[in-house]
């Protein structure tokens, strides 16, 4: 567990360093995910070192989002002033994105399995 967490944090740190070096607004943790994936593929690290820590973090990910959501309370005034565009855009866009992404992916997936068959 300690080994897994230490390695995850080390990959995150490498991602943060890389993010600063390339100067793009890509957060270090996403780059860290990419670096870890590469390291696993190349065989520099073994998947079993990470399994326990990853399971602990991933199965509790929802909990870590709660404080970010509580942060909404600070922007009550801005949200109250522009509640209509905010609500409509958020709700409609979320469903449209889900429908487009899911439908398109399913259609392409079906075409591919037809090609194979």
């Amino acid at each position, binding site marked *: 567990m300690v080994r897994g967490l230490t390695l995850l944090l080390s990959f995150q740190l490498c991602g943060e360093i890389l993010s600063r070096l390339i100067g793009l607004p890509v957060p270090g943790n996403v780059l860290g995910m990419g670096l870890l994936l590469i390291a696993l593929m190349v065989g520099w690290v073994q998947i079993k070192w990470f399994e326990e820590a990853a399971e602990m973090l991933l199965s509790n990910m929802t909990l870590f989002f709660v404080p970010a959501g509580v942060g909404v309370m600070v922007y009550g005034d801005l949200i109250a002033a522009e509640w209509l565009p905010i609500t409509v*855009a958020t709700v409609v866009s979320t469903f449209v994105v889900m429908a*487009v992404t899911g439908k398109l992916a399913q259609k392409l997936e079906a075409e591919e399995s037809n090609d194979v068959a």
Partner: protein
Amino acid sequence: MWPELVASPLFGIALTMAVYLLAQILYQRIGSAWANPALVAIVTIILLLKGGGIAYRDYARGGDLLLFLLGPSVVALAVPLYQRRADLWLHKRPILIGIFAGSLVSILSASGLAWLLDGSRAVILSLAPKSVTTPIAISISAKIGGVAPLTAALVVLTGCLGAVCGPQFCRRIGIRSAAATGLAMGTAAHGIGTARMFEINRLAGAVAGLAIGLNGLMTTFLLPLLIYLTGL
């Protein structure tokens, strides 16, 4: 004694975990998607803080420590991706095209609707990256002239909405494949949608995790380009 305790990180952590635990028990008892533990916990904590006259700043001392764990969690998404690499590689074309389309539609629909409804420039720009995972969305928003904390709030609201309604919505409009559902949830509702997918199906969760990273990357490049093209 009380103000001193409230201002310590212990307060924010203990409050968040206790409320979340109760919200999870409630969710298991009720069984309705609307009782989503993240949504219930967020609303309950805001009401408790407001009711108790406690400043967000005091809560955040502990809250931020829990929020920090989101960082290594995103890195840990590489683990299910690696474990499922064969499945993902098999579906690489639908995955990449689906996420690209979703990313573009997300930016255009969110900012377009806000523009049509007379939203201010700050709100339009804050809404544009709303389907991207919190850490990426905040960096993008700050860079393009949005209000980063408002973006953070909208990202969480989007995620809750997706997690609550997403699986049922996908079934209703005829999306049956686990990979396509995971892709839709990860692209539209980032980490909160992904966390929900992990409860339902491991493959869908892994695909959703991939969608978080790829949608984040695509939005990072697409959004500045679109702002340049539209002259906003």
